[in-house]
């Protein structure tokens, strides 16, 4: 037991070190597409942060673009532009001379993690706020986040597939099932049953379990030094929140709609007042789901990266050690947040489903 606990701490320790190392490797990287020149360490850290939080068209592991030590692998770029599908690997952006890729007669250029349509020279025009005014094709690329999502999905399918296989052979949980089963029971007995009710909860179990484990594992993957940030993308959390929203509306029973449009048991004037509030509530609920998960994970990443950055800003060894310790401590907190956010998202989804299928007995 003691050894196991030590092993877990050692793992966390290694995690912090490698993350810190990751940051230090790339802390002097320059944005290829920006003007070159010496930058202060603070600017560099800010760049790394911004770069990490944004989605990327290639999977960068470590190293630097500028001096050619960058270790990364390209990901497929898929563009939909005026009825034409363009498909090439992201490495093409770096191979071409002016970083412009020609595909089926159109030219595309990667600028600040976004793909713009340009002319053959790769000219980008700016408005007064220094925002590019070039046309943007519909970018359906398998970006780093999409690629990571696929990996997480495969990991989950493999994990739970093997758990299911274990149960097919034997009713007694063995190996990984021993660890997974209490979590499944947690979702069922502490989230689904009390919030949705004994009668309807089974219908929502697949979604609740999937969303719980997807968010949790995606959050955990985000904790690794690979620099993956799945649930800290608003597009991801919007997707999840929308599924919860539509599932709630489609499973809404008569009582649910009655409570929204014509609240029973209150004076008629109040019903009129309550109707717009309730309709607003319908949309606020999934919106809060979206923002909560996105903001929590994003903030976690920002805080961790900021204090790792502080290790490099302070030159005194005592300060470096202190911030290293703080990073280590916050990493552990983030592990908790990873679980907590998955739990909260699942719990609130179950709560909304519960309100949709609830049947009141009118007296």
């Amino acid at each position, binding site marked *: 037991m003691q050894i196991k606990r030590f092993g877990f701490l050692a793992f966390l320790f290694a995690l912090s070190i490698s993350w810190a190392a990751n940051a230090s490797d790339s802390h002097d990287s320059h944005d290829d597409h920006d003007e070159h020149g010496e930058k202060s360490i603070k600017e560099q850290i800010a760049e790394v942060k911004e770069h990490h939080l944004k989605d990327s068209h290639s999977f960068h592991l470590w190293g630097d673009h500028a001096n050619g030590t960058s270790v990364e692998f390209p990901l497929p770029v898929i563009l939909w532009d005026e009825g034409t599908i363009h498909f090439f690997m992201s490495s093409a952006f770096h191979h071409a001379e002016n970083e412009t890729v020609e595909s089926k007669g159109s030219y595309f250029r990667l600028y600040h993690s976004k793909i713009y349509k340009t002319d053959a020279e790769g000219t980008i025009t700016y408005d007064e706020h220094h925002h590019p005014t070039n046309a943007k094709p519909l970018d359906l690329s398998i970006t780093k986040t999409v690629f990571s999502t696929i990996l997480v*999905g495969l990991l989950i399918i493999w994990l*739970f597939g093997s758990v299911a296989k274990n149960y097919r052979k034997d009713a007694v949980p063995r190996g990984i099932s021993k660890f997974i089963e209490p979590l499944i029971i947690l979702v069922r007995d502490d989230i689904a049953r009390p919030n949705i009710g004994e009668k309807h909860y089974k219908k929502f179990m697949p979604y609740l379990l999937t969303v719980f484990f997807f968010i949790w594992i995606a959050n955990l993957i985000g904790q690794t030094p690979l620099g993956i940030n799945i649930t800290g993308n608003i597009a991801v959390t*919007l997707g999840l929140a929308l599924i919860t929203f539509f599932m709630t509306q489609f499973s809404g029973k008569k009582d649910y709609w009655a409570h929204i449009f014509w609240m029973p048991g209150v004076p008629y004037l109040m019903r009129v007042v309550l109707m717009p509030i309730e309709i607003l509530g319908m949309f606020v609920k999934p919106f809060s789901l979206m923002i909560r998960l996105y903001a929590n994970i994003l903030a976690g990443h920002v805080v961790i990266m900021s204090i790792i950055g502080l290790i490099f800003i302070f030159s005194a060894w005592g300060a470096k050690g202190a911030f290293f310790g703080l990073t280590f401590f916050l990493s552990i907190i983030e592990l908790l947040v990873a679980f907590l956010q998955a739990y909260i998202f699942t719990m609130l989804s179950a709560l909304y489903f519960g309100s949709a299928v609830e049947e009141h007995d009118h007296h």
Partner: protein
Amino acid sequence: MEKLINDFSVGLFFWQLLLFVLLLLVLRKYAWKPILNAVEDREQSIEDALNQAEKAREEMQKLQSDNERILAEARAERDTILKEAREIKDKMISDAKGEASAQAENIISSAKEQIKNEKMAAITDLKNQVAEMSIEIAEMVLRKELEDKAKQSELVKGQLDNFKMN
């Protein structure tokens, strides 16, 4: 807010929805259904086993109380049997005693009777013998006395006088 909208990627949203729904469908078929079914089956079997154990325990208890009841009944029966036997024994002894004493009395009384009879017979016999002997003596005396006439008439006369006195 502008940054938020700028950061929003339609492609990521599209892939995320697609991948998540795919993941949901695959997991629902190949993971959640078998896992949840297995867990529920096992819970059911555990519940059944517990219920059965409880039932068995109750039955055991019932059996035990039955046993105790039977034992108590047997003990009571044994006691009554013993009591009855004791009573019968006492009765038999007392009956035998009574009978024996009655019989003994009978025997004694009959013996007494017999003794009395024998005694009477003996007395009678003795009387008869005495009488005979007396008669014989009297005869012999008379013969001796009445050898002469005078004496005879004197005797008759004496006898007659005797009658007159009476």
